[in-house]
């Protein structure tokens, strides 16, 4: 398995205010698959994503990604893990406002061990013509495509998408999802999408439902659909 999570627990707060964001999560995913994690707000899906992405650490349990146990790694080792393995896409893009489109992508390619061709990525995502623009000069959909380009340019093993269409209209959402699909097909990048939008689940190979910090169900999508086919 590419991702293996065993008994993952994470608690925020103490005493009566304690909340279990993850309460014994067990889950695994094969390499190259698209996995959609569904759940309502506060169910723990973002926490799970942060743990897999090495942004936060578990209280107990274990996470292994591509054979590397990332549980208990030092901050420095987690930084190296993120740098080498993980691409992030966020709901609000989180682009660096002082950098142009090209520079936002370059900021990752400069530190990546084996980056993809930046022009190829920008062209593939149809944003090459905006390369000298700043994030604020782009629409939400265009900004999200820049975020995808930035995530992909390092050619990550794992692409983590946190509500990537949450701030977009239907047309932009479909466009963005098509690019995710395209990337998965072209580069075979294992992709984890967390969302509360049920419709996106149709895009996935595996659908994980999470509630109150626990896995409610894991289903293999027998009738996987393309981004053009799903109803957003």
């Amino acid at each position, binding site marked *: 398995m590419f991702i293996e999570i065993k008994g993952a627990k994470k608690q925020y707060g103490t005493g009566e205010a304690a909340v279990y964001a993850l309460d014994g999560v067990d889950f695994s995913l094969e390499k190259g698959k698209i996995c959609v994690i569904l759940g309502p707000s506060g169910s723990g899906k973002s926490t799970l994503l942060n743990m897999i992405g090495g942004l*936060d650490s578990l209280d107990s349990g274990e996470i292994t990604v591509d054979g590397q146990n990332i549980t208990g790694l030092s901050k420095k080792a987690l930084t190296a893990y*993120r*740098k080498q393995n993980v691409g992030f896409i966020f709901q609000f893009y989180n682009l*660096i406002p*002082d950098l142009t489109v090209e*520079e936002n992508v370059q*900021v990752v390619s400069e*530190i990546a061990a084996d980056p993809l061709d930046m022009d190829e990525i920008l062209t593939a995502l149809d944003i090459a013509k905006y390369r000298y623009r*700043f994030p604020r000069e782009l629409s939400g959909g265009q900004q999200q495509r820049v975020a995808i380009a930035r995530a992909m340019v390092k050619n990550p093993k794992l692409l983590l998408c946190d509500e990537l269409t949450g701030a977009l209209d239907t047309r932009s959402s479909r466009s963005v999802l098509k690019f995710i699909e395209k990337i998965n097909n072209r580069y075979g990048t294992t992709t984890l999408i967390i969302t509360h939008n049920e419709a996106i689940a149709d895009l996935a190979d595996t659908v994980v439902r999470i509630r109150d910090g626990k896995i409610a169900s894991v289903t293999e999508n027998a009738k996987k659909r393309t981004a053009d086919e799903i109803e957003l």
Partner: protein
Amino acid sequence: MKLNKRYVRSIKANLPFYIAASVLTMVTLLMFYLFYIAGTGINAYGDEFFSKYKLESATFSTYKEIPDEELSALESKYGVTLEKERFAGVDDGDVRVRVFAPNKKIDLYDIQDGRDLRSDGEVLISAGFAVENGVKPGDKIKIGGKEYTVAGTFLRPDYLYMVENESDDYKNVTSFFLAYMTENEFTSRFGGGSINNKVIYGAGTDETAFRKQVNEDYFMSGYLAAANNKRVTFVHEQADMFLMSSWFILVIFPLLTVALVCILLGRRIRAEQKLIGTLSALGYEKSKLMRHYSLFALIPGVIGGILTSVAALILSTPFGSLGLADYEPMKPEFHLPVWVAVAGVVIPALIYYFAAMLRVRRLLSEDTVKLLAGQVGNDAKSRRILSRKKAPIKRKFAVRQLIGSPGRSFVIFLGIFLGAMIVAFAFSFIDSVKAVGVQAHGEFGSFKYEYILNTLKDGRPEDGEAVFALPYEDKEARRFTLMGLDGDAVLWNRTLTSGESADTDNGFYITTLFEEIFGVHKGDPFTFRSIATLEEKTVRIDGVIKNGYQSYILTSREKAAEIAGVEGEHYNAVLSDKALGYKSEEVIEIISDKTYETQMDNMMTAMGGLIYAFMIIGMIVCIASLYATINTVIAENSHNISMLKVLGYENRRINSMILSSNHLLLIPGIALGIAAAYGVMAWYCAEFVEVESIIIPATLYPQSILCTALITTASYIISLLLLCRKVDRTDMIAALKDGRE
């Protein structure tokens, strides 16, 4: 209002900023407080001591002794207090003693340690010498070969600054002291001794008429007003120097610091624009929000002010004492006036309060939607720089941070500038005083020795060049020397400010210092009078000699003698480029080309503590201002920092990327800080002429510039190191959640 619950939480979250801003406020205000307290303390002590121990108005000597019964007649006629003081000089080889019989009316002594005289075998000695040489009451001391028991130590008002001779510029407490013996012992040892007449003028005394009558009846041979006596005037001059420094410090440093803190507070408030917009959208009134944020701004002002008052209470006495290291061991009480303490708390706090209030008001005048989106103040016009150029991201990012956020760059620049300025000012003070020592003799002339003789001699000396010099005063009783030189004399400086040489045979020339003090210029007539006879004389000034250290009029020996009413060729000083064989009893003083330099070195040794304290304060200001500023920069960049961390950037690389742009501000910040310090020093020196009667050349040697640059850079690096953990502790997840662009 519920909003007030934010106070504790917000203060906790921004604690380093509040600490740095409070420290900044405290340190710069403290500099003002310490100098101000020292100045007022010394002045108060001087006034009280002079009044209590009956400081003379003047000392004078006459060729004919004034009979005791005539003293009373003069007292009645002119409304003055008069007393004859009996004294004798004793040369014990390495140590010289001026022995007095105790006065009863004027210049009374105050016992510092031990007790008063009880028997003929006892003496009182001056306290400065006793402290310097470890002499205590009960110890034995030899004066003129006879052993006495030291009964106690004393201060007297006309010797609070212990110079041996009137012409000396620097104290001597190592080889010279004063002593009192009983009347009986004094008479048995020295007979009548020498006599100085002491006078205290009454409120309605006609001083000129008094002096004229004394001269007519008893022939005045010397007259020294207390206002011209450095043993007396140095006390208030030192206090005035402290006070003048305090106002300079107040005008420059706290104002700049307060401006810096105001800017930082403004940026902190702008960073809260989303919350301000939200509260405004929820219906919070403008006035409530303004009050809410203004109260945060009070914190550094109030805490800084209180800390300043506490620190001033603790440090004022040791600090003031450092400034009095050169003086007889006076014990002024250094008090912090209540109004100064209150003003120190209230003024900066109110400035911060209103600065914050105005900032919130300005924010609330913006579109609420823009506030909610956090877009106020994000003018991106200048961020396009290098957007189409091929360059490393780090460099592009740095340049845009620098130019794209001019406000942010300015506060960092201001922090570096302020630190460099204070440090450079301290160095400049040291260098300027040193420069006096190094340059002064060059402006005096090329002689190696100047022998001040104690008698008037005829003709020309066998070796060296003759000088005829006598003191005179203007109508305001300000003293100067009229010097006469032979036309062929070359050892005294005659170079005029125009570059030409003074033609002393045919004119009268003043120095640049004389020009400053007396306000007389080339071409002006100048009227002065004999100190003894008060006979007036007017001369026309033909030029100005470049000399900022001495105040004299230079002319020919013949003219100088004529003005003094002396016929023939005479001299009372000799200049020489080699040591001459004058016996010690023939000379009052020998000035060498190193004398002034040594005196300045001694002065720096005494003032060193003050200056180095100033330098340390400069470093603290530098570190605190940069810490507060860079802390704000990191807070403003928290979103970028989080994103770079998420993308896999190491902390070291992030630090370098976010903060490297600031390195570019180091050079201009330091350069302009040094230039400003030099400017302030030049201003300070110009004002110093009034206080100390010396033109100090504002100086900053290359090595001091280098040290300033190194100290400022080190402070900058220290503040960066202190903030390294801040990047490490930036919460990636929280910052990203807040990172909606």
